């Protein structure tokens, strides 16, 4: 099967036109920026707080907006039209992820600038942020595919938001409750650890394991999303 960039950009353009007329989504995009202004304006925020805002941006835009886009396509049956077209799974996935990715990149960058956050090792942090964005998009696609409507996706996003935005504040409890050590391996925690090391002046070699774990999450979530998509293509 040939790969067609024309099909990918066609889906991207369609999503752009659709989203620009969707007040629900456009207001969601502004929320992380408002949070960044409220919590980061004094420039003295802790790394945990900065990454809470960054992760909130990643979850709200990367996951929630993406989940809403997919869930709405499912709800209105338009996803079926894409599935029945000559577009391949890769083309549809790329097309459906591109807009959310661009929006996530813009919002997260905007949040970072508003909070005056200067990462210690910019390339490492940027790579980790890009990988994290790809992970959150995969999570959004998965949630969108598994829910029946935009409303259902909006409900499911609440615990997801908690886990990926606020769970870093549970780190002190890990020593008391060893069962919580799994938290350490979540992509947001790896991102935070990487950022702390970068702030302390370490190089790529020291954050390699963090990046690898995030890559593992990226691969896992996208394989799962493709599997669910393929299952949805053909009803039993």
């Amino acid at each position: 099967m040939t790969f067609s960039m024309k099909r990918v950009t066609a889906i991207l353009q369609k999503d752009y036109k659709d989203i620009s007329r969707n007040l629900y989504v456009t207001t969601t995009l502004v929320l992380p920026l408002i949070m960044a202004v409220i919590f980061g304006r004094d420039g003295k925020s802790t790394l945990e707080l900065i990454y809470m805002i960054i992760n909130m941006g990643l979850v709200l835009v990367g996951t929630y907006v993406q989940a809403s886009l997919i869930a709405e396509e499912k709800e209105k049956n338009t996803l079926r039209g894409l599935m029945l077209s000559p577009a391949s799974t890769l083309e549809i996935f790329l097309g459906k992820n591109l807009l959310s990715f661009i929006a996530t990149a813009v919002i997260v960058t905007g949040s970072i600038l508003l909070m005056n956050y200067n990462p210690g090792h910019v390339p490492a942090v940027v790579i980790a942020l890009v990988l994290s964005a790809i992970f959150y998009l995969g999570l959004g696609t998965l949630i969108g595919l598994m829910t029946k409507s935009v409303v259902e996706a909006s409900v499911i996003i609440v615990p997801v938001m908690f886990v990926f935005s606020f769970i870093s504040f549970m780190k002190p409890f890990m020593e008391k409750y060893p069962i919580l050590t799994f938290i350490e391996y979540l992509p947001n925690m790896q991102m935070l650890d990487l950022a702390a090391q970068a702030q302390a002046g370490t190089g790529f070699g020291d954050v390699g394991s963090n990046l690898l774990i995030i890559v593992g999450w990226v691969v896992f979530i996208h394989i799962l999303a493709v599997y669910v998509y393929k299952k949805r293509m053909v009803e039993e």
Partner: protein
Amino acid sequence: MENVIEVNALEKFFSKERALKNVSFSVKKGEIFGFLGPSGSGKTTTIKILTAQLKPTSGSTSVFGVPTHQLSKEKYRKKIGIVTDNTALYARLSVYDNLKLYCDLYDVPESRIYEVLSMVNLAGENKKIVSKLSRGMLQRITLARAFLHEPELLFLDEPTSALDPVNTKHIYEGLMRLKEKGTTIFLTTHDMNEAEILCDRVAFLNNGEIQLLDAPKKLRQQRSDASLTVELTDGRTIVLPKGPAGAQRLFDHMNANEIISVYSNQPTLGDIFVEVTGRNLV
């Protein structure tokens, strides 16, 4: 003539409920094949299986000579057009933007948008936002979308159910033009008149089972007693049997200039459906 669709001993169960029972038929290239039956008879289930949206429980189905589960390949998708009862259009986008997406997906020039809109009697409506359109207009845009890439095989699930007579006629003319170009059309409907006008052959589906399959004309002829109904100028309506006696009486009335109209007593497809299945097509 080659078969575009082949279905053999197809069965489909949803849990323990049997939706299709030993369904077998084939559709020839360039044919308009009607799948007739009331709601819930298994028409949409069959289309879903034939377009690889639904797995059959047993039996074999092939389209263009390949098993239907292989239809996800790009070259087959480009040959197929599907119109379901669900319009599946992007409500916030214009008619043009909806069709442009599919032009790009099927690699069709944008100029084709105006041709297909004209085919469904919607020329000049391209800038309208989909959410503001009536159900009939939405159905016509869905048809236009299916016509965009000039598919070799078109699946139409109740394509004119929301249309008024004028637009229905327009769609029929469009479908006949596609047939002339060699498009094979698999049409499900419960409109007997539609089947009579469009279909080369029809299958009667009842409770998931094909009960009769043939050309509409043949089905009517097979069940005709060849009698005639005659309306006379004195207000009477008489039935004339076939054979010399009936012919003589017809001649006498004609000779006396007493006839207003003469009708064949061939049953309609609707009559035959009721006779075969004991059910009305609703």
